[in-house]
């Protein structure tokens, strides 16, 4: 393995060794959401006029779990290594900032996709899903995981302790994912909140992902892909810049 591949492997091994906490727990949480919301709202009118609420909910939960876990992986790994001081083992190596980025974001994507696939595997039995455009499903899963992995890397680099990272996670990531249309179609919202939702990049990730399943969505998947792609470009550039300058990791 080359240097970055080793760091990627180490980061995957890190979450896999505690997979009860990092994979099984989020899958269980998503199933509980589905059971509670699916039960309470089972008589909800069809979304887009053709999709049952439970079926509508499943891709949203899959994507939400994928995004939150991709973020959690890179951010918690970075903060933990900084706090424990073992980041020095990587700082002493010849790995470039590109290698760091590829390894941290790649492993975050891996965890996000594994958790997302786990949630899908367990929930797919609750309602019929179309899988109309598998390429869109895969594309949004990978782009979304990469975007949140890179955001997690930035949060991890900027945070000096766990509560700073937790603040980022609880006050930024959680509200943005919850208010992105996981549990509802934004067309059911008042105009003001529809406008607000359109400013949330997480909305486009979930809407585009859902398009892959049902072939219908709130906005065009091409628009969603463009928003997610531009966001990924901007966030990646910031993360690479921080890594190159050694922000808060080299004195």
């Amino acid at each position: 393995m080359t240097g970055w591949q080793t760091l990627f492997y180490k980061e995957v091994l890190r979450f896999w060794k505690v997979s009860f906490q990092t994979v099984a727990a989020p899958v269980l949480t998503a199933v509980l959401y589905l059971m509670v919301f699916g039960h309470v709202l089972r008589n909800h009118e069809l979304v887009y006029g053709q999709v049952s609420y439970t079926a509508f909910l499943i891709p949203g939960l899959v994507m939400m779990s994928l995004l939150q876990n991709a973020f959690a992986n890179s951010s918690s790994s970075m903060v933990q290594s900084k706090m424990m001081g073992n980041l020095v083992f990587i700082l002493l190596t010849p790995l470039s900032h590109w290698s760091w980025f590829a390894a941290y974001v790649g492993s975050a994507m891996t965890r996000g996709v594994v958790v997302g696939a786990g949630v899908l595997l367990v929930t797919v039995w609750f309602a019929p899903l179309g899988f109309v455009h598998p390429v869109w499903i895969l594309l949004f899963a990978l782009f979304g995981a990469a975007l949140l992995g890179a955001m997690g890397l930035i949060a991890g680099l900027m945070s000096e302790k766990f509560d700073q990272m937790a603040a980022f996670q609880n006050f930024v990531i959680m509200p943005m994912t919850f208010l992105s249309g996981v549990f509802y179609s934004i067309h059911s919202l008042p105009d003001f909140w529809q406008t607000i939702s359109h400013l949330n990049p997480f909305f486009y990730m979930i809407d585009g992902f859902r398009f892959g399943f049902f072939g219908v969505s709130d906005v065009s998947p091409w628009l969603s892909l463009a928003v997610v792609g531009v966001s990924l470009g901007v966030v990646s550039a910031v993360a690479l810049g921080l890594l190159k300058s050694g922000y808060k990791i080299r004195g």
Partner: protein
Amino acid sequence: MTVTAIRFHQVSKTYASAKGPAGASFKALDNVSFDIQQGEFFGLLGPNGAGKTTLISILAGLYRATQGEVAVMGHDVQADFAQARRNLGVVPQELVFDPFFNVREALKIQSGYFGVKHNDDWIDELLVSLGLADKAQSNMRQLSGGMKRRVLVAQALVHKPPVIVLDEPTAGVDVELRQTLWQFIAKLNREGHTVLLTTHYLEEAEALCGRIAMLKAGRVVALERTSTLLQAASSHVLKLKIEGQLPPHLAAMSRVTGRMVQFPAHDAAEIETTLAAVRASGVVVEDVEITKPDLEDVFLDVMSQKTCGAAQEAAS
């Protein structure tokens, strides 16, 4: 032809001070210059806060120098950081570890970062040489402090670097590990590896290091062969074990450690004079010993003097 293994050229490091008024700064290193040739066993000494770890951190790329140049085997640590780090193995001072892995995994992963493949034979040799063979499958969390320290040494050497930096490797470790470690490091040095050592155990530096630099408040205050430093000190040390309190004028001339008192002395006449002065002060002398000065005497002597400009000039 000797090759310069490590080169510090006019290195300064200024930190923005967290305390004090805005814009206040603290100069941790001030125009430090010296070279270490390939194959040397070099000691970097100084009291706490002298700048030793800052200098090593700049060498390792953990910190950036505010000014100056640092190179490992001719590779600038910033401009050509990848090559510089491939040539450098650093044992950090802090006892850090990754709790997710066992010893062998940690070493294989560290090899991988440097792109070293099929490294099992060398990893096995490191495990045996550092007394870790029976701990290879143990998780890092299960190891004692001494064992963790050995793993840190193994991690630093896993890519066979020609230049090895040990930042206080024997702080708080038992005699057995020190012996194991020094035998192994001395063997690597005999095989041609360059070693840069910082330590608070001056007897270790005296026994191991061919040349020594002393730092004080971020400046080089001595840079000599170890033997030259020892020769330059007073030729004898008069050690007395006393009962009672030395009068102030005698205490000022000596180094007092509990009941042990040491006076520097250049010749027999000076020894006689000092002894007579002690007797005259009414202090009871229980034991007398005349020895050669050791590195600790030299160190204390150098540190008690004002910053030595000559050393700076000689080094630059």
